[in-house]
């Protein structure tokens, strides 16, 4: 029972982080802010991708994840497809792993 109360607290603060800005910017978003916010997705996505590829253990390394991500980037560039990017990157990872790279 106590656990459920803690989960509820966690859920509440998490929901706050998800809902606060959607509610705050719910009506008129100033044009300048809107133009700024349009660049948030590419910035956030790149910030999620690059460290996972080049520093998966927290230090810079050109290992399997880096090569898989490069293969994925090539597929992404050619196809713009999420599915094929994942398939291509994972295939590169597994093939290189099998080859003992």
């Amino acid at each position, binding site marked *: 029972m106590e656990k459920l109360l803690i989960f509820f607290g966690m859920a509440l*603060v998490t929901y706050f982080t998800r809902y606060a800005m959607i509610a705050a910017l719910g009506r008129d978003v100033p044009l300048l802010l809107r133009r700024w916010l*349009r660049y948030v997705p590419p*910035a956030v996505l790149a910030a999620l*991708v690059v460290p996972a590829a080049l520093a998966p253990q927290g230090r810079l390394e050109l290992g399997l994840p880096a090569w898989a991500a490069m293969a994925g980037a090539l597929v992404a560039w050619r196809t713009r497809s999420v599915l094929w990017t994942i398939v291509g990157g994972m295939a590169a990872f597994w093939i290189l792993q099998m080859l003992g790279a």
Partner: protein
Amino acid sequence: MKDFWRGLLATLPLAPGVAAFGLLYGMMARQAGFSPWEAWAMSLTVHAGSAQFAVVGMWETAGVVPIVLTTLVINLRHLLLGASVAPYLRGLSPLWKALLALWMSDESYAVAIAEYERGQGGHLYFLGANVAIYLAWATSGLLGALLGVTIPDPSQYGLDLVFPLGFLGLLTAFLNDRIGVAVAVVAGALALLGTVFVPGKWIIIVAGLLGSGLGLALEEVERAWKSS
């Protein structure tokens, strides 16, 4: 309704990544003394992978306040995601906004906003993406907790790469001009520096804010250049 299924299907390629970490979460929750139902309940109510991993890791030693605070800090990045998707949701009723916020994850946000950028997004598509990740996360968490066995580290099979690869595919929607490319390169480099020197989820917020700020600044420079 068609858009709902479109969003759900577009998110499915990310499901193996969600499932691998969901199984791992369920297993770790069991080791921390949770029953399978408790592990499941946390996924159903909180629905935030990184925070749940952190909390399960600190459960036996930490008190309520540190647990809730940790959850808050790890999830602060959602403020930025919410802000960037907010202009697309302006016409919706408060109830719809509240519903879309409820299950917004990094992954479903990325899928939804890429579709908005392509001009084909919508609230039903967004909801479909949210539901796909929610179901995959909750189900795999329960399954991992029920099995309760030690499963190998997902990164051994490269399964930790599913999300980054998916994000890479979605990133292409935003690289239509030089400014978009510059934003991605700089934000990626900042995040890399942050990861190497001061790791943590805060990197997403800082790289997101600085990268997008750079985008706006470059846009202003370009505009001034053209009008001169």
